[in-house]
């Protein structure tokens, strides 16, 4: 009953609040949103691979600010820690390990770029149309107690979501073990490819008096 009342009052509040008179939070959200969207567009269109990763930092950091504006502070800091802190670093390491060119790479985009653009524009138009049509009058009440403080998030996470949380930790462990298994060399342990080719047969025979082979095995 109180829920329905809250819905009606929120709807009434949204009726009185038009899009032409935005509040301060909305203006901040719009500005940061424009920056975030622009950084995302540059990320997917730039021809310099390292610049794409760095623009991804801007986009993800902008999203963290949006989470802060939505009063979800714990999610915002987790976003900064996980995405900006580790995922982008991993991507940069991946770019370096695959010997990505530093300058402009002319073949960063594939040949089906117009089709991709058409699909993306169609998806964006459909999604924006549906979302705006559905939530035109919906109002988020940010004035009450913050919905995403660390205390609130932690309480809900460790009261209602303990089992998925623990299952997720097992999943993360399995993924890390899988990543280690995938990225492990089957021949040598480290060094360049030429080094691997030269040491792999010696390590595989293993019977010869090769002092390097046990070291390699131990290092693995």
């Amino acid at each position, binding site marked *: 009953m*109180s829920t329905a009342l809250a819905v009606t009052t*929120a709807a009434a509040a949204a009726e009185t609040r038009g899009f032409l008179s935005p509040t301060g939070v*909305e203006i901040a959200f719009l500005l940061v*949103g424009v920056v*975030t969207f622009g950084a*995302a*567009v540059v990320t*997917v269109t730039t021809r310099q*691979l390292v610049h*794409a*990763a760095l623009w991804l930092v801007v*986009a*993800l950091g902008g*999203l963290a600010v*949006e*989470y802060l*504006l*939505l*009063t*979800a502070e714990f*999610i915002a800091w*987790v976003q900064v820690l*996980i*995405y900006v802190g580790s995922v982008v670093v*991993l*991507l940069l*390491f*991946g770019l370096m*390990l*695959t010997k990505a060119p530093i300058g402009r*790479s002319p*073949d*960063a*985009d594939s*040949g089906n770029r117009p089709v*991709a*653009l058409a*699909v*993306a524009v169609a*998806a*964006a138009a459909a*999604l924006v149309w549906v*979302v705006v049509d559905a939530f*035109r009058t919906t*109002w*988020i*009440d940010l004035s*009450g107690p913050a*919905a*995403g403080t660390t205390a609130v*998030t932690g309480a*809900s996470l460790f009261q*209602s979501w303990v089992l998925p949380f623990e299952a*997720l930790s097992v999943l*993360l462990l399995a*993924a890390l073990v*899988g990543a280690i298994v*995938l990225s492990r*060399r089957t021949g040598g342990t480290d060094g360049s*490819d030429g080094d691997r080719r030269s040491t792999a047969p010696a390590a595989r025979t293993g019977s010869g008096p090769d002092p390097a082979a046990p070291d390699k095995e131990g290092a693995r």
Partner: protein
Amino acid sequence: MHLAYPAVLSALLFATGLYGVLARRNAILVLMSVELMLNAVNLNLVAFDVWLDGIARDTLHSGQALTLFTIAVAAAEIGIGLAIVLAVYRNRGTSDIDRLRDTAESGDDPDDAGPGTAAAAAEKAEATA
């Protein structure tokens, strides 16, 4: 705040990531675009969670819990994905997904399998290095 603002931003970010996944050629750039799409979903989850917290006194906070789970799954995904990309790069000398056509149906593609593939891949690796 109107719920339409975060929802529209999320839709636009998702479409941007979709374009990147379809148009990019380097596998790591495709992974970046996948991250953009996952982040668009996260923004939606947080916005709707805050909205429901306001109107329904939702104490479960499922949106934020799901956002944390999505972030963790995305971290696992990027680790596995990069390991796969590095393994492919080590075996083929390229991380260009247009060249990985081993399971393609038509065999008449000039880039396709055959003795020329290794030479083409090596040439490609030299060109990109």
